[in-house]
């Protein structure tokens, strides 16, 4: 299998033909279109769990493994992917999940995909089979190339295997719901995040704040008393709808912007419906014609972060927040080193790489 991938990569490199690395195809909507005519490099055939030792808190799996299978295996031992990756379809694979670098509701409390990546096995643009990082929690031998792969949108190499840190599932999870306007919600979420409370997710939508508490029953109940609000009966259904964007808010054909900004930033002075997660650190915005990409990006930048045009990009706006020239030079230089012929997903992240 790997031989075939290597051969395909070498041929593509020789002819400088772009390769579109594809997993389950659930995140086609995300990112820019690939520059030029490309061939598909199907990564799904290389799949399966290579090693999983629950008491080591480490799972190593091939990149083509479906997330469903992976999470089912973890579930058997009461463990989970703590970054709650969105699938956007049952076919989602581990490779795609790491390459897209997207994390779900638990991100502010537990960390992002990149925080859980311990090691990767990958093919670079010359088809070389390389291992970075490892299967242990702590490893500072060599540069952290494995984490660099998270969110690189497949532009640096083809992932073959990934080792992830996994965590036990919390014993109890409940969700509290309360009426609050945006400003008050931002203030509350941030105040609570500065207190030792077992908050594992927050979401503000339609004038209501949802707060998920996770942990030992005693801890969750004690926090419930402190926070107040009404307990939601279908806790996991709600968070699933946020994670997978099946919630009503997301049912719109308008451009969906994803702003990752400082959590305390005031409500965005923009028309259009908004949904907040991550204690205010993530703002989803349904854009409309009156807002230019430049305006949205300026607002994000002023709020200490970045804006991505996540979905429904009808007018071919660059999806990812532009980089300044110094950063772009480093990106270009890295791309050149990992993929000298520029064959992996060219343009998917930025036109220059």
């Amino acid at each position: 299998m790997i031989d075939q991938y290597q051969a395909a990569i070498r041929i593509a490199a020789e002819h400088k033909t772009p390769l579109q690395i594809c997993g389950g195809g659930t995140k086609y909507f995300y990112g820019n279109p690939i520059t030029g005519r490309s061939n598909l490099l199907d990564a799904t055939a290389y799949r399966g769990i290579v090693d999983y030792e629950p008491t080591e808190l480490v799972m190593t799996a091939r990149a083509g493994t479906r997330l469903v299978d992976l999470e089912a295996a973890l579930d058997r031992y009461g463990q989970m992917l703590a970054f709650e990756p969105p699938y956007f379809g049952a076919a989602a694979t581990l490779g795609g999940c790491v390459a897209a670098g997207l994390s779900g509701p638990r991100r502010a409390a537990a960390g992002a995909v990149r925080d859980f990546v311990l090691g990767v096995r990958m093919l670079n643009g010359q088809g070389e089979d390389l291992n970075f990082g490892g299967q242990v929690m702590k490893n500072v031998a060599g540069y952290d190339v494995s984490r660099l792969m998270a969110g690189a949108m497949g532009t640096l190499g083809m992932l073959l295997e990934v080792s992830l840190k996994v965590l036990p599932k919390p014993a109890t999870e409940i969700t509290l719901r309360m009426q609050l306007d945006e400003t008050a919600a931002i203030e509350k979420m941030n105040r609570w995040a500065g207190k030792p409370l077992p908050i594992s997710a927050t979401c503000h939508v339609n004038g209501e704040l949802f707060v998920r508490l996770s942990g030992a029953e005693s801890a969750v109940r004690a926090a419930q008393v402190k926070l107040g609000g009404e307990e939601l009966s279908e806790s996991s259904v709600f968070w699933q709808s946020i994670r997978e964007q099946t919630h009503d808010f997301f049912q719109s054909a308008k451009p969906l912007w994803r702003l990752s900004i400082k959590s305390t930033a005031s409500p965005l002075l923009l028309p259009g419906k908004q949904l907040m997660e991550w204690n205010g650190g993530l703002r989803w915005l349904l854009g409309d014609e009156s807002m230019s990409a430049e305006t949205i990006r300026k607002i994000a930048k002023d709020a200490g972060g970045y804006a991505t045009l996540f979905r429904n990009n009808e007018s071919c706006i660059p999806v990812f927040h532009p980089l300044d020239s110094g950063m772009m030079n480093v990106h270009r230089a890295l791309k050149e080193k990992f993929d000298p012929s520029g064959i992996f997903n060219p343009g998917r992240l930025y036109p220059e790489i």
Partner: protein
Amino acid sequence: MSPQELVKSLRSFLSPEAVLYETEDMKPYECDGLSAYRQLPMVVVLPQTEAQVIQILQLCHATQTPVVARGAGTGLSGGALPHAQGVLLSLAKLNQIIAIDPLARMARVQPGVRNLAISEAAAPYGLYYAPDPSSQIACSIGGNVAENSGGVHCLKYGLTVHNILRLRVLTISGECLEIGGESLDSAGYDLLALMTGSEGMLGIVTEITVKLIPKPEKAQLVMAAFDDVLKAGNAVANVIGAGIIPAGMEMMDKITIHAVEDFLHAGYDLDAAAILFCESDGGAEEVADEIKRIYAIMQQSGATKISTPQDEAGRLKCWAGRKAAFPAAGRISPDYYCMDGTIPRKRLADVLRGIEALSQEYGLRCMNVFHAGDGNLHPLILYDANQPGELEKTEEFGGKILEMCIRVGGAITGEHGVGMEKINQMCAQFRTGELAMFHAVKAAFDPSGLLNPGKAVPTLHRCAELGAMHVHRGEEKFPELPRF
């Protein structure tokens, strides 16, 4: 450029006290925490502002002069070892906490700020900076970023890489990169991760925005003694298997227990083959629950003695013993050499037996302290530098331990970095392809190789010469180690 010319150019924009070139003035900078390696640089500079750092880098870039960054010099792998023809760039005077934002739970600090100073400054807000290397009263946050340092709480709270948001980094040409943001996610490649642990090889960090987290309401400790290391290792697995992520999980072996007890009289069980320290933190209710569960697991795992100090003084006394392992080593031996490798936890008993065998073979004692939760082993090899040949023997012994770590599927460094010390073992951990990629990454930032040259990544040539010692993961069996 001659040393005189270089000094003259540096003094054109730095005050006289900020440029050291007399041997006696430079002496304190000739080594880091790994004092077996010493080298005087051509000149030491102590800038006070980022603008001065930029000027220094521009000068070094223009004159092709090597630059070695230095924080507090507590590194244990020779990462801050000066370059004979280079500038030693101390960031120690960039030591301001620029801003603390308690509501957003972040602090913006200069690289020379001491790790503990951040937590002290955040304490009035009930917040702290989580990674707590044992050296935290001395080490700098810039050095922590460069080494991706951890501490006893990192299984639960993460390493440096998990606790920083944004960096200002200067490239060798003096250009400033703003990496990350005040946001959790940022745009483009994860250069924040790439910079973390890069040992001063890719750029000079001049500002760091760290995350602050709320101080847990309560912390409590279970201390359990075992008559067999294997049982202690299993107890660790049992705790984690039960779905508990302890705030800290540390182990000491017999010789360490004795050394520490002689020194501190902490009341440790001297018959024990290993002692486990397992800490729970969080809300009062949660901690009470968790401690009960941990206690039961220790019992079921065959602990011979279990104690749970009820008050804070008792808890701190127990920890004091664990933290005193280094000074205790210093008390029973003229010198000691601290190693740092990681292993899959399940191989602990094998590895300890392997270390014991090597200890016999080399005739050198070895104490083992272990960040048991995350598989990070710190063998302390006891030796006497005044005995001819003993340091060399110690280094060889240490090298063998690291190779053993690789063989069982681990790594040659968990948190101390490669630096100068483990450059040879890098040839055992990685193959040519990976090493070539590391050099390529370096070249993407620093094409002329002026930042900390010769550290962290060995030349392919060096590895070829060491060829004989190549052992790749799992490809070779380890005959000395019994399997089970």
